[in-house]
C-alpha cells in the first residue's frame, strides 16, 4: 500500500484548525452575550415584578409622602416637557403630516387621510416619539440621580428609617412617568394633527376643516383610545422601571454611571419597541 506523505495529510487539518477555532470563538462570544443578555432581562423582570408588587401592596401607605413625589414627577416629566413636545408635534405636523395630506390630495387619495393619520400619528408615532423624548430628558437623569443616591448610601438611610426604597424612589416615578407619557402623547397628537392641517391649508389643499376632522373621527375606533392609553402609560412605566433598575439595583461607582445610563436608554428603547410589537398584534387580533 502506498503511504501518503505525512505533510500531505496534515496540511488540510492545519488549515481547518484556525477556521474551527475562529468559529468556536465567535460562538463562545455570541453565547456569552446571549447569556449575559438573558441574565439582565431576568433581573429586570424580577425588579419589575417587585416594583409592581410594592405598587399594589403599598398603594395606600404613606400617601402624604408618596403623592407629592408623584406630583413632582408629573411636573418634571410632564409639565416641563410640554413646550418640547409642543415643538416636536408642530415640527412633525408641518414636515410630515402636511406633506402627506398635500400628496394624498394631489393623487386623489384624500379619503385615506383620516385612516393614515390615525394609524401613523395616534397609534404609532405619538406614543413612541413621546416616550423617546421623556426617556432622553428624564430617564437618563433618573439613572444618574438614583446611581448617585445609591453610591452615597441614601438607600440604606431610607431603610434605617423603615422606608421601603422601592416605594419611596421607584413607585412615584412609575406613576409619574405613566401619567406624563400618556398626557404628553395626547398633546403631541393634537398639536401634530392641527399643525399638519395648517401646513396643508397653507398649500391650498382643497380639504375643508370639517371634512378633515370628519375623516379623523370616522377612522378612530374605541380600541384606539384604549390602546393609546394603555400603550403610552406602559411606555412610561417601562422607562421608569428600566431607569430605576439601572440606577438602583446594583451598587454603582461614580465612573459606572455613564455606562448604566447608556444601558438604560438602550434597554428602554428595546423594551418599548417590543411592547409596541405586542400592541400591533393586539390591534390585528381585535
Amino acid at each position, binding site marked *: 500500500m502506498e503511504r501518503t506523505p505525512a505533510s500531505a495529510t496534515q496540511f488540510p487539518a492545519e488549515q481547518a484548525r484556525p477556521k474551527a477555532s475562529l468559529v468556536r470563538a465567535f460562538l463562545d462570544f455570541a453565547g456569552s452575550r446571549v447569556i449575559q443578555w438573558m441574565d439582565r432581562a431576568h433581573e429586570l423582570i424580577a425588579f419589575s415584578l417587585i416594583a409592581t408588587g410594592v405598587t399594589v401592596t403599598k398603594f395606600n401607605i404613606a400617601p402624604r409622602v408618596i403623592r407629592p413625589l408623584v406630583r413632582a414627577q408629573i411636573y418634571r416629566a410632564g409639565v416641563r416637557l410640554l413646550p418640547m413636545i409642543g415643538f416636536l408635534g408642530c415640527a412633525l405636523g408641518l414636515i410630515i403630516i402636511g406633506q402627506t395630506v398635500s400628496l394624498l390630495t394631489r393623487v386623489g387619495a384624500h379619503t385615506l387621510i383620516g385612516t393614515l393619520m390615525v394609524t401613523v400619528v395616534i397609534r404609532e408615532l405619538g406614543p413612541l416619539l413621546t416616550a423617546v423624548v421623556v426617556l432622553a430628558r428624564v430617564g437618563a437623569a433618573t439613572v444618574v440621580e438614583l446611581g448617585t443616591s445609591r453610591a452615597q448610601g441614601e438607600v440604606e438611610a431610607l431603610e*434605617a*428609617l423603615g422606608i421601603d426604597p422601592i416605594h419611596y424612589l421607584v413607585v412615584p416615578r412609575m406613576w409619574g412617568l405613566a401619567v406624563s407619557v400618556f398626557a404628553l402623547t395626547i398633546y403631541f397628537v393634537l398639536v401634530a394633527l392641527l399643525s399638519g392641517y395648517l401646513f396643508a391649508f397653507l398649500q391650498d389643499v382643497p380639504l375643508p376643516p370639517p371634512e378633515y376632522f370628519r375623516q379623523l373621527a370616522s377612522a378612530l375606533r374605541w380600541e384606539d383610545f384604549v390602546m393609546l392609553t394603555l400603550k403610552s402609560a406602559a411606555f412610561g412605566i417601562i422607562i421608569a422601571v428600566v431607569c430605576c433598575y439601572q440606577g438602583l439595583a446594583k451598587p454603582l461607582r461614580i465612573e459606572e454611571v455613564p455606562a448604566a445610563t447608556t444601558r438604560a436608554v438602550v434597554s428602554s428603547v428595546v423594551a418599548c419597541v417590543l411592547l409596541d410589537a405586542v400592541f400591533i398584534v393586539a390591534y390585528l387580533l381585535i
Partner: protein
Amino acid sequence: MSTAADKIARPPVIEMFDAAVTSTRAPGSAVIPDVNWCVSLDDYWVIGGPTGSGKSDLLATAAGLQRPLRGVHRLFGHELSGLHETERLRERLRVGLVFGDGARPFPQLTVAENVALPLRYHHGRSDAEVRRRVEEMLDITELSAFADSAPSALMRAFVPRVGLARALASGPEVLLLDNPLAGLDPRQVRWWLDFIAGLAAGHSSMKGRKMTIIVACGDLRPWTSQGRQFALLKGNHFLPLGGRDDLGRCNEPLLRDLTAAHSS
C-alpha cells in the same frame, strides 16, 4: 454576670448569638464571623475598632438592616428572621441609627423635611403634630435656624446633627451611632458627648425615658468617661471588655492603641 432580677428590670434589647455579620460590599462573606453580644435596656455600649474592622456593618446588622449570614439575632426578644415584614418593621423602628460620614441626610430635602420624613411616612400624626415634633427636634439639636436650608448649605459640623434629629424624631428606644465624632472640633465633640449623655440619662424630648446607646468609634479616648460597657473589634472578632473599671485592667494592645491615638 447579670442576675435574674437584673434581667427582669433591664431586659435585653439586642441579642446576637454566633451571628456572622456580613457586609454590603461583600454580601456573601462574613466580616465578623462570631458575634456573641447582649445589649440590655439602658446600656451605654462603646465599641472601638480600627478602620475596616466592620463597625458600620455590626451596627447595621444590630439595627436589623442587614441579616446575619448565620446565627441568632433578636430585637427586643423577637427573633428577626421569624417575624413577618410588618412586625419586623415595628421592632426595627424602635431602633434609631445615625450613620457615619455625615449621617447621610437626603440632599433633595430641606433640614426640616429630612426630620419630618419618618414621621410623615409612618405615623398617622397631623401636620401640626409633625411640625411641633420637627421644631422640637431641630431645637434640641440647635438646627432651628437652618430648618429651610438644604443639608448641603449647612456647615460641615452641623450636617451629622440632621441625621441625629431624623433618627430621634420617631422616639426610638435604642440609638446606634456610627463614629459620630469623626472630623469634629473639640467644641462640637463636647456638644455630642453631652447630648448623648443626656439621652442616656433620660432627655425631655424622649419623655424623660432613658435611651439605650451604642456607639462605634475609631478613637476611644472621648468615650472612656462616657460609656458603661465596652467592646473591641479586633481581627474580625468581637471582644467584650466589660465595664469602665475593667478598661484599666485590660492588657489588650488594641485598646491601648485606640485610647492613645494621636497622643504623641
